Each structure stands twice: as structure tokens, then as C-alpha cells.
């Protein structure tokens, strides 16, 4: 079973995403900000991270840059999942090492295809 870490400060979004991911047979963990997510990755690296952009303590972008800098051999796929929906944000995310990008709102089909495209579903 593949593992997914949902990183989002909204409990509602985490709940919705968890439901979708569990129907796609992922084992799911949650983090409320980038710092918490980084600690989780140090302890146990997931196959994929579903990452919000704007969060307290540490943003999604800061988390992604730190994660990629650490150069672990088992780097997870990172799918940004955010309300930031303009071209500048999308390009910045891809340059920082994101593998895919989902703009909220999204549905199960959209997320499933994105996870297939990065090779984890």
C-alpha cells in the first residue's frame, strides 16, 4: 500500500483529501504545517506528499525547498494542492521541485489522474 502525507492547515481539506486517498487505497498521514511535515518525513518518508501552499509556521514552498535540499535518496513525489492558481505560482512550484499541481477545488478523478501521472497510483 502506498503512503501519502497530507499537509494542510485546514482540517476540512485534510478530511476530504483523506477520504479520497483512502478510496484510492493509500495509507494516509496528516500534518498541519510544513515544519510538522518535515519532521514526519525525517521519521518516515511517504511515497507522495499532497502539499498546501499557505500555512502557518512553515509554508508549503519552504517545506518543499528544504525537503529537496536534504537530498534523501527516497525523495517522495510532491503534488501541490492549493488555491494559488496563477501561472507564476505554478511555475515557481515546478522550479522548486514539485512533480504536479492541483488547483482547489478538485474532485476524486482529478486527484487520481495526478497521482497516476506521478506514478504512485
Amino acid at each position, binding site marked *: 500500500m502506498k503512503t501519502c502525507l497530507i499537509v494542510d492547515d485546514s482540517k476540512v481539506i485534510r478530511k476530504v483529501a483523506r477520504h479520497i486517498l483512502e478510496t484510492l487505497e493509500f495509507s494516509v498521514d496528516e500534518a498541519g504545517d510544513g515544519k510538522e511535515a518535515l519532521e514526519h518525513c525525517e521519521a518516515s518518508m511517504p511515497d507522495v506528499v499532497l502539499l498546501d501552499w499557505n500555512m502557518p509556521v512553515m509554508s508549503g514552498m519552504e517545506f518543499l525547498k528544504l525537503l529537496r535540499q536534504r537530498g534523501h535518496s527516497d525523495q517522495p513525489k510532491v503534488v501541490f494542492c492549493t488555491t494559488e492558481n*496563477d501561472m507564476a505560482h505554478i511555475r515557481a512550484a515546478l522550479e522548486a521541485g514539485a512533480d504536479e499541481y492541483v488547483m482547489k477545488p*478538485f474532485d476524486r478523478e482529478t486527484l487520481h489522474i495526478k497521482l497516476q501521472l506521478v506514478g504512485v497510483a
Partner: protein
Amino acid sequence: MEISDSSSRILAGLLEARTGQQLTLNRRWRLETALNHLLRERGIASIDELITILVMGKEPSLAGRVVEALLNNETYFFRDRAPFDTLARSALPALAQKRAATKRLRIWSAGCSTGQEPYSLAMMFAEEPLKWQGWTIDILGTDVSEAAVQRARAGVYTQFEVQRGLGIAQMIKWFEETPDGWRAAEGLRRPVRFQVHNLLEAPPHPGGFDIVLCRNVLLYLNTEMRERAFERLSSAMVPDGWLMLGAGETVIGQTRKLTADKETRGLYILAGQAEQADRQVA
């Protein structure tokens, strides 16, 4: 809102008369959702009141709007992925060889809804510019819904629609952000054209399609209508052309005009062609 059986039957009859499509069970339970917007827009209190207006013929244009609302326009880019892989792996390389002299390909996306399938096909060609350089690629998208065809022609999608089925790199390469939404790039729009068309009528002029895609449409037709649709589709194909259906749809037991392509799973060829190929092998 309770919908009476008689109202449901009248709506089913209207849909079938205008499009040949049946009001299948999965459409019946969503009647209310499908018609809600129209009811609010026209200030009609219930579906039964709507039926009264329709039956009395007070607003002739209303019937068309009801039919539009009942049609299922569900689609997304590269829907189901596997069929597009099949085309990329089998049909297109074969056609690239067979049509090398004329360098012309005609593709018909029948029942294309709001255009995502034709634009997905256009993307496949646009992403291999060297391979298809000098070719005339003609992709025709048709749908029975006028509203869907208008949207397809506009080629502008909401944020929700544009990311359904597309990877982010593909999305930013082929769509530009505009105040109205995400607009398909010129390179996608050039080979694609759209027209309103009912599958049960004569195929679009001039026919002679190398590939016909008709996915997730025939399931809404009854046996007799489906047979007629297969006749129409097969008459639109060139002798060595292919038909592609939706997952779970088949020609087996539905028509004698077409048969499964033994070489490529998921594609169908004209029955006469299969016999000819068998004779050549023998």
C-alpha cells in the same frame, strides 16, 4: 421534490424523440439536479409545472432547453488514458505509414461534449511536431447538444475543467490563462472544428474518417437506435479505418457491420476488412 412517474415518462419521451437517447436509471435519479438551474432561471416551481408548460406547447424553445439540461456532458481531457495510449501505440503509427503519400488524416470525435476529447487528440499530434510536419490533420468534434458545441468551439475551460486529466506541464504548455478562463492554444485549435450533429443522422460531410471515436454515447441508446448508430458510424469510416468505443461498450451482438480488430484490443474495424485480412492470411 417528488417527480411523478408520468412527468418522468414525458421527459424520457422528449429526450428520446429529440436525440434517440434513453433516460437511463442513472439519469432518472438526477432529473431534479439536471433541471434545477432551468427551473430557477424560468421561475418554474416544480418539474410537474414544467411538464404542464411543455405539454401545452406555450414555450416551444423550452423543450430544447430541457433536452440540453438532460444530456450528460461529463468529459475530461484524455479520459480513461488507455484509449489514447492505444491510439499512440497502434493506430497512429500505422496510419503514419499507410497515409504517407497523402499526408492527410481525418478523425471524428462523435459525442464530444464540450470538446476535451478532440483537443486531447490535437495535443497528441501537436506534441510530436516533427513526426506530423507537413500533414493535414482534420479533427471533427460533434455533439447533439448545441450548448456543448458552443463551449467546445470557444475552447475556454474553467480551472476545474482544465486540470481534469491534464498534467500540469501539459496544461501550462497548451492553455493560456485569460480573464474568461483557460483558453486552448492556437496549435490545438487549428486542426479542430466542431458541429452540432445527431449520431442517428447521416454522418458529417465529407466522411471518410480514418479514426472514429464514439465513447460513452451508445450506452444511452436502445438496441434499435444503437444498431442504426453503428450503421452511421461504419458508413463514415474509410475501408481500413478504426472505430474506438468507450470502456464497457462493444460491437459484439450489436451490429454486423463492425468487428473487433484482432491486432489491437479496444479498436474495431469494418467487418468486410476483417474477412479480407483473414483471406490474405489463409
